[in-house]
């Protein structure tokens, strides 16, 4: 939390041609003189493109694309918790522990995950496969408890089901 992490690869991040096309689509959603508005979707795209997290280089790159001073991009990226500023594993497991899930015993879900993966919240497995995070409400209270792995929601969980889900991941 105290400093932006630099990318370890040393290769400056660049969007692929396909991603650049998506950036253009994003830009078209906003007036031409309000290009800065695109910073959040472009950051989101960058996070997808550059391995699920945003290094300082990636943030600087987004700043040049959107035409903002880098610090303005850092402000946005640090404000929102869904931008990952540290490397994450191939599967980013985000467990909701907010009120509805908690009432439905999300504690047991979290405990099952910790045991299964041998990770605490905020940690990544050494093989780079898993990252376990505790998150606030993801808006699926109707089927609490729930968790999110990358883009997918898994709902109505039990500890046994969690273990099964992890095992089934490719």
């Amino acid at each position, binding site marked *: *939390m*105290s*400093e*932006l992490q630099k990318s370890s690869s040393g290769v400056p991040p660049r969007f692929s041609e396909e991603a650049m096309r998506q950036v253009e689509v994003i830009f078209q959603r906003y007036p031409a003189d309000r290009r800065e508005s695109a910073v959040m979707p472009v950051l989101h795209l960058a996070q997808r493109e550059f391995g699920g997290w945003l290094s*300082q280089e990636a943030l600087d790159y987004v700043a040049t694309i959107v035409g903002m*001073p*880098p*610090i*303005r991009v*850092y*402000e946005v990226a*640090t*404000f929102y918790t869904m931008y990952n500023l540290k490397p994450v594993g191939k599967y980013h497991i985000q467990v909701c522990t907010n009120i509805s899930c908690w009432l439905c015993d999300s504690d047991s879900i979290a405990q099952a995950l910790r045991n299964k993966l041998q990770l605490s919240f905020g940690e990544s497995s050494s093989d780079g496969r898993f990252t376990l995070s505790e998150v606030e409400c993801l808006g699926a209270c109707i089927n609490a408890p729930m968790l999110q792995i990358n883009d997918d929601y898994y709902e109505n969980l039990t500890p046994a089901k969690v273990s099964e889900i992890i095992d089934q991941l490719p």
Partner: protein
Amino acid sequence: MPTLIIDGKEISVQPGATIMEAARLLGVYIPHFCYHPQLSIAGNCRMCLVEVEKMPRPVVSCAMPVSEGMVVKTDSDMVRKGRQAVMEFLLINHPLDCPVCDQGGECTLQDLAMKYGPDRSRYHEHKRHERDYDLGPLLETEMNRCIHCTRCIRFTDEVAGAPEMGAVYRGDHMQVGPYTSRPLTSELTGNLAELCPVGALNNKPFHFQARGWELKNSDGICAHCAVGCHQRVDHLNNEVKRVMSRRCPEINQTWLCDKGRFAYDGLTRERLQQPMVRSEESNQLVPASWAVALDRAADLLKRFKPEEVAGLASESGQGAEELYAFQEFLRHVVGTPHLDHRLRQRDFSADEVPLTRADLSMNTPLSQLGKADVILLIGFEPRYETPLLNLRLRQATLAGARAFAVHPRQLQHNLANLTQLVVRPGDEVAFLDGLLQELGSSDGHRSALAEAWQKAKQPVLLLGNYAIHHPQAEAIRRCAVALLERVGALSTQWNGFNRVAGRGNAAAAQDLGVVPHRDPGYRRLERHGRNAQQILQGAANGEIRLLLLLGCDPSIEAVDTSLARTALAKSVVIYIGAQQTPAAEMAAVVLPGLANGERPATLTNLEGRAQRSDMAVMGPVQAKEDWRILRSLSDRFAKPLPYNTREALQARMAAADHRYALDGLEAGELSAACDHKPVTAGLPLATVATSKDGLLLVVEPPFFQDDAIARRSTILAQLTLGRSALGTLRINPEDAGKANIGDGQRVRMICGERNVECIASLDANVPAQVVFGDMGQRAALLQDLCDWDGGFPQVSLVGL
């Protein structure tokens, strides 16, 4: 105009004004941290709570616009309770380290905590720990003390135009800072330390140097460039400890640039401590008494015919008193017409034309620059010549003005709307001539510049250092006048002609006749003396036998330094000045003078305002004010200078030029700016000059090292102007690639028979076929390759 009552006092203010502003007009103090009159409203510290009748809650006075009939109480029970609560929250995370904090004693938080703070904390949890950043050599950070007022963020964003500070994370995790440890690139970073209401951002060179309450202060005028910012010099035990800004809405508002703020540490370095004369036995300079040194100087001056004596002065570092006494001493005591201060000027053809002050200085006051709608910079890099003037231009561009720059390379700038037109050195006149013809023709196809210029209502044109010291400076100046005349911008309502002679006190040197063709007060002389170039040439070929130098060193500053060295070696030199320089080492007599800050002085800024600067500290014990040296020296002649006190000298200056009559001003009043119209128009335009082929060398004065004190400052030596290190030769990357020269490589630069070794650095701002170097670098003196008459030297490079 809404009328409201604050603490029982009635006031009418402009609609839209806030309660805070109304209270300030009334002189009612409302405590605040985040509010700053020069910055946008943030309203986030919540300290300025006031009670407004009929409103249920306390309101934030800095953000609440006034309305008719408001009744405001700034010190009711409700207000006090509100502020106490705010203060308790602010102190939750603030460390109790006032005894080791630089801000202690002059800290808004400390002062207000005395009034509103609880005497003990109810908070027993862990305090927040924040990270400190390395913000470069000027700022020390202790971010635990930050109270999140965001003044630094708003300043860098809105005023400095270098958005590098920010607030990252949110809520109680919020951190203020650049989030990466990079030195800030702004030339105004020192203001952050002054702006910070607590001890989070501190003045690094002042860190642990003194306590605020021990310091004595005196009112100074900055002489490091010609803007003439008002500053407060804080000193202790006869040593300048720091420099702060003084508010002056017409000139510097509340800011100072880093050069003005941090150059002070060069004041005491390499100083001349005592008079010295060259001993006849050992041929060494040996200390002497004032009487002996002055006698020797007088003997030398009398040994030659008056026409064989010449004087050269530096415009920076001298007060108007010194400059006036210098010209009077040479003209009326010694009797020589040869004197000049324009060591950097190449084109002296303007001396033949009766130009006046309006032609040689600014005609748009600084306070009006923000109203310009089109800005044309010719050979002017405002950010690194006159930073506080640049702020005004930036304000104009933020308000919608279009700016154009005609310069030999890409400028480093922070203007909002700047179009850069890179013109090869030597092609400027042709370019401006082309622009004039475009304006004259009815042809539909016009450049963006011509289009904007034609439509401009209030255009300003600024000639900077490069244009003033250009080989065709007068031709460029006349084109500039013609451009403004074409759009009617030379009238008394709006005069857009500005020649920005950016070195400290350059205007006084012109006003007071330290030029070979004019007396003080712009009275032209029948018989012109020699100009700076002719003086040095004369000294080199034996026509001039004695050089009297006032604080200047031609061997570093002149256009052609190798000529200057020959001139100094062949002539007898009498050196009056504060600093040890190569010229002083070659002198026959050295008379130690005082520097700015060590004596009261009159300094004229680029608008032509004469201002008095107070004495802050005492100089070396034996040194004297330069004008007093000249006065004592004149005693040894038939007609001594007719004044014994500074007041008498100032009265004489006032008689010569009414703008120097400052005694009638009330305290805090400024002398008039730009009261010297009209500009001389209608002079014939020069035939179009064109540039040479090949690689051209342009030598630029480096901003942070442009005067004797700044050059000796170790603080400023750490600053980089946002480009490669000082003293390197900047080359276009493609040119370097072709010549097989890498970044940081040693190269030999050759021009005819002369050559200089220096270090190359690749710079994408530099166009092809031009190289740029820094003036006055003793390690690689690039002016050695320059020739006064030859224009820009054509050079070739060899990698070593």
